[in-house]
């Protein structure tokens, strides 16, 4: 936006003559800045009200021992709640499950999503629209609905999966998917992948579209194989898009809630951090302890952002194609 502003301003300055240029330039820019603030201001205030305020309130509440049903017994405990959380095995187990789900889903989705993006990119014009719609359908389904669909498909009483896949080793009529950590996590991760691969493939498709055709054609003329073109031309040119896709999905996957809540309720070692925060604040009504879990979750998300942006140098502007 600043680039276009500058261009417009300097064009205006040129047309009105050189001598008045500096004064007109800054006044005009200032006016546009003011307009910018006026336009973005309301949204900014709303964002402050609905995100900054609850975050600060949670950080404040996390310093108290405060139970919603015993408002009179509220007492200041400083960082005591954080001490309880960080020394508890349950927290580390839940963190482990959350990280496992995040890593596995993001990796699988990246590979699958890239394949789908290639298919969408290369598809004939006549089927392109249909193909994109078909691929996007899972992403359009509400997570709770898809979680129930997957739950009932695998449920030992109503499910058909045991019936259909009975020929596979390890699967039979008596397999209760949600009774063990491994099998339950498998269903949760599979459902998550099914649902959000379209999202990642869309981001990657945008990246693919940015790779200049000339480079590809030049490599082709030089006799590069498909794999060489992929590795030397396409992937390096869409690195920014890939990193943004990974970052967005990782942040999303880390905050997973619906699938676990619906399918197992966190039973048998499938609990994730956001479910722990929910059970502590909403289930136990322990506002102080629950807020502390939420703050820890928030810090984890910030850490992921920090690592991605600082260490992997994800350029958020690059993927949008808005940077000149």
């Amino acid at each position, binding site marked *: 936006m600043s680039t276009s502003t500058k261009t417009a301003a300097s064009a205006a300055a040129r047309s009105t003559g050189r001598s008045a240029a500096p004064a007109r330039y800054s006044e005009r820019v200032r006016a546009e800045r003011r307009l910018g603030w006026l336009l973005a201001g309301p949204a900014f205030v709303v964002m402050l009200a609905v995100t900054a305020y609850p975050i600060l309130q949670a950080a404040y509440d996390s310093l108290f*021992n405060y139970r*919603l*049903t*015993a*408002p*009179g017994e509220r007492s200041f405990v400083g960082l005591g709640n954080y001490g*309880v*959380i960080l020394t*508890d095995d*349950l*927290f580390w187990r839940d963190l482990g499950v959350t990280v496992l789900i995040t890593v596995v889903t993001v990796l699988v989705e990246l590979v699958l999503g890239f394949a789908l993006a290639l298919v969408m990119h290369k598809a004939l014009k006549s089927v392109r629209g249909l193909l994109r719609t078909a691929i996007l359908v899972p992403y359009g389904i509400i997570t709770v609905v898809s979680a129930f669909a997957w739950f009932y498909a695998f*449920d*030992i*009483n109503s499910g058909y999966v045991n019936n259909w896949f009975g020929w596979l080793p390890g699967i039979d*009529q*008596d*397999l*209760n998917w*949600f*009774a063990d950590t491994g099998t339950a996590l498998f269903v949760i991760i599979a459902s998550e992948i099914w649902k959000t691969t379209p999202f990642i493939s869309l981001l990657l498709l945008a990246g693919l579209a940015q790779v200049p055709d000339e480079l590809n054609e030049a490599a082709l003329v030089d006799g590069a194989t498909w794999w060489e073109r992929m590795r030397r031309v396409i992937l390096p040119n869409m690195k920014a898009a890939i990193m943004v896709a990974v970052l967005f999905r990782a942040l999303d996957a880390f905050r997973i809630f619906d699938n676990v809540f619906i399918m197992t*309720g966190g*039973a*048998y070692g499938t609990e994730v951090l956001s479910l*722990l925060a929910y*059970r*502590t604040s*909403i*289930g*136990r*009504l322990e506002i102080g*302890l629950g807020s502390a*879990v939420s703050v820890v979750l928030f810090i984890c998300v910030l850490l992921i952002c920090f690592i991605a942006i600082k260490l992997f140098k994800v350029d958020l502007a690059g993927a949008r194609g808005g940077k000149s």
Partner: protein
Amino acid sequence: MPVDQQHRPRARHRAVAALASAALLLTGCAAEAGPPVLTWYINPDAGGQAAIAAKCTEAAGGRYRIETSLLPNDAASQREQLARRLAAGDSSLDIMSLDPPFIPELAEPDFLAPVPEDVAQRTTENVVDGALAGARWDGELVTVPFWANTQLLWYRKSVAEAAGLDMSQPVTWNQLIEAAADQDKYLGVQGALAESMTVWVNALVESAGGQIILNPEAPADQIELGLDSEAGTKAAQIISTIGKEGLGGPGLPTQNENDSMILFQGDKGSFMVNWPFVWPATKAAVEDGSLPKPLLEDIGWTLYPRVEDGQPAAPPLGGINLGVGAASEHPELAFEAIECIVSPENQADYFVTNGNPPSSTEAYEDPRIQEAFPMADTIRESLELSAPRPQTPYYNEVSTGVQQNWAPPRAVNPSGTPQATVNFILAVLRGEELL
């Protein structure tokens, strides 16, 4: 001038619009000016509470109107919503259908309006003991008993006969375990990590003469648990045997009340502990043809199984009580409405139409009940024997602690689980561990 001409009609439009909206507001007020509306937060049922609400609205002759508002499906989510609303001082909580174990938590911080003495007296005549205990906290009646639930032992007559069990005599859990193993059938029990697990553990511990909490009215740091006892070990032995020998079927670790009913109705069904809803549900399934007709003839019922041969069982107790929110704007009317709702006639109606048994012994005299529920006398007898779950403001912590240690049943270890549960719950109550 042209500007003015343009503006005048607009101003007129505006005036008309303002009048119109004022009129709308006024009619809105007129609708509000009718009888006061009492909101009744109900747990999901087959429409029985809405029918009673309509009936009592009519009987009130314009003094109040009862509107129902539906709560979430499971008891834990109902509690979450009500507790949050009560803590926030929501004035729409005129009447609430409350699950008894969660009442102390709401009564302790005075979230519930006190029950007037005359109402208390009139609504507690002829109420079964268990339901009355669940309606009290700290020596006072804080809610009004509405319906009372209890689990029976349901059995397939053919299986009991083949196993040589005389079901006219009290049976023990060990007999059932042997019979199911002998006949290669599954027992219908609830092994999921859910409230139903606490219901089962509490019934077993109470049947063995023990208690989960020894001093339920104590503050968090003084609570003493009774699971690490002979009764706790016996309960663990039963649950662990059923889990380890696969007698609950492969679905046991995720089995709730509905799942065990489906198991019981199937080919591997033998014995099941469950609430009376299974009878109308099975009858309806047979009538619409999804289950074979002879099944209904094959189903028998008796009192909950015993843990010890000579000691009567303490069946689980459930049900719903009615409470009034402390912030309600019409508490007198709400209690008047509650008196209407819990009348023995309405309780009998509710049992016949929705399958939820009355808490008033008087309601059982209704001839329609005997016809619809041939097991009504067994239910009443079971209610008299039943033991409530621990009445403590920390019920959620205690119950979740039990569930996390006793589910799945195959992982229960009679020599370790009861003690581990005690240590875990106490650490959570002291605020030293996450739940």
